[in-house]
């Protein structure tokens, strides 16, 4: 009988293991086993043999899949997959950027073109119009002291705006400061009116649009002297059919006139003004 009152023949025959209590195996032995050392305690020698079998040379069966792996490697390594993808993505990116750049350029062109058109049509708000006037040479915005001229009113050739209703706060040049090589009358009077009054400039444009000049119509009402007052206007763009005006481009007086701050604004601004915005001229 055993201590548990069980017959000895009924108890299982379990052999006692020397490692059952665990005291025979130390951590140093286990570390040595993991490190692959074979000279361990005799009780751990079977374990060392098992671990050595795990590290054994490969069998033929374990190397049988080499051809399959090499085929996959050959398939992948032979193809420049990353480069091709990179090239595709670069090309796509370039095309997308080009499309965006073209769209942006078109939009900018439309905006700038529209703004320029509106500026030259004098359709912008006054501050922006003045800015456009300074930058682009567009017509200046009308101010309170300078009322908007009446539109589309044709003026008679040879007429001078200084004689109209448009007020000009210009000091007329004296005759002595503007000598006329041709000896025409009072050039100073007409030049002073041309250079400073916008309404006067508009009048001059109206004359130019008709291909005429004040100089070509001597005797018409002007500053008082036939042919003289219009001489300054006629110089600035009505040269067609006007031999007198053509002659004036080579005129040192004309060149001098360009240097004059009052006269300078007149020929440049005249050309840019649409006909319907030309200041009306008094008859």
């Amino acid at each position, binding site marked *: 009988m055993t201590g548990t009152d069980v017959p000895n023949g009924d108890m299982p025959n379990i*052999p006692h*293991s*020397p*490692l*059952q209590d*665990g005291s025979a*195996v130390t*951590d140093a032995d*286990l570390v040595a*086993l*993991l490190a*692959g050392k074979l000279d361990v305690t005799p*009780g*751990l020698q*079977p*374990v060392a*043999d*098992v*671990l*050595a*079998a*795990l*590290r*054994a040379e*490969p*069998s033929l069966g*374990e*190397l049988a*899949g*080499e051809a*399959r*792996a*090499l085929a*996959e*490697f*050959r398939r*992948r*390594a*032979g193809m420049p997959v*990353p480069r091709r993808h990179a090239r595709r993505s670069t090309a796509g990116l370039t095309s997308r950027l080009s499309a965006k750049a073209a769209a942006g350029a078109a939009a900018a062109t439309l905006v700038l073109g529209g703004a320029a058109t509106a500026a030259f049509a004098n359709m912008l708000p006054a501050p922006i119009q003045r800015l456009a006037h300074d930058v682009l040479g567009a017509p200046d915005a009308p101010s309170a002291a300078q009322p908007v001229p009446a539109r589309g009113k044709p003026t008679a050739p040879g007429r001078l705006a200084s004689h109209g209703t448009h007020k000009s706060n210009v000091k007329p040049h004296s005759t002595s400061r503007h000598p006329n090589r041709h000896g025409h009358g009072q050039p100073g009077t007409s030049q002073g009116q041309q250079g400073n009054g916008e309404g006067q400039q508009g009048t001059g444009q109206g004359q130019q649009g008709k291909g005429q000049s004040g100089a070509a119509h001597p005797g018409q009402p002007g500053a008082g002297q036939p042919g003289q007052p219009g001489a300054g206007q006629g110089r600035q763009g009505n040269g067609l059919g006007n031999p007198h005006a053509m002659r004036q481009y080579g005129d040192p007086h004309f060149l001098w006139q360009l240097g004059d701050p009052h006269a300078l604004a007149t020929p440049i601004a005249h050309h840019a003004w649409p006909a319907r915005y030309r200041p009306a001229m008094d008859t």
Partner: protein
Amino acid sequence: MINEEFASLLAAAQGGSEAAFSRLWRDVNPALLRYLRVIAPGAEEDLAAETWVQVVRGLRSFRGDEQAWRAWLFTTARRRAIDLARHRSRRPEAPLDDVAVAQLPRTEDSAEVALEHLSTAAAIALVSGLPRLQAEVILLRVVAGLDTESVARLLTRSPGAVRVAAHRGLRRLAQLTADTGVTL
């Protein structure tokens, strides 16, 4: 382990050298199969092939030493095995022949298998009789040649837990061989 030549072999393989890649494959694939034979018995060949396919895809971008290389390979293989186990769990109608050895009744049976073969397969069968974590730790430390920190990262455990699992597995293996009188 390749050791000193590993860097040059890896660079050559990344440059397209088949011989270098073959050397790398021959060095790791047997250990990979032995590891997979324990954690995914019956599917080790397919899982190893899928692992190498994935490794070849990422070979050019791999950076690291031999320890990192092996850790990458075994991590990839382990994830494949986990995916396979999930797939099998969703399809429980698998025939009995495909049931993993690790899922079969163990202890004395594993020892008997080891007694019959006396080979690497017998050693793998013995390790397969250990609890899963202990078996994985021993295989990764002994077969894959990874250090404790690498195994801990691979198994998402702490290094201390890995050391404890390794020691417990070795003690249990020693007890198992002593009980059954296994000699390889």
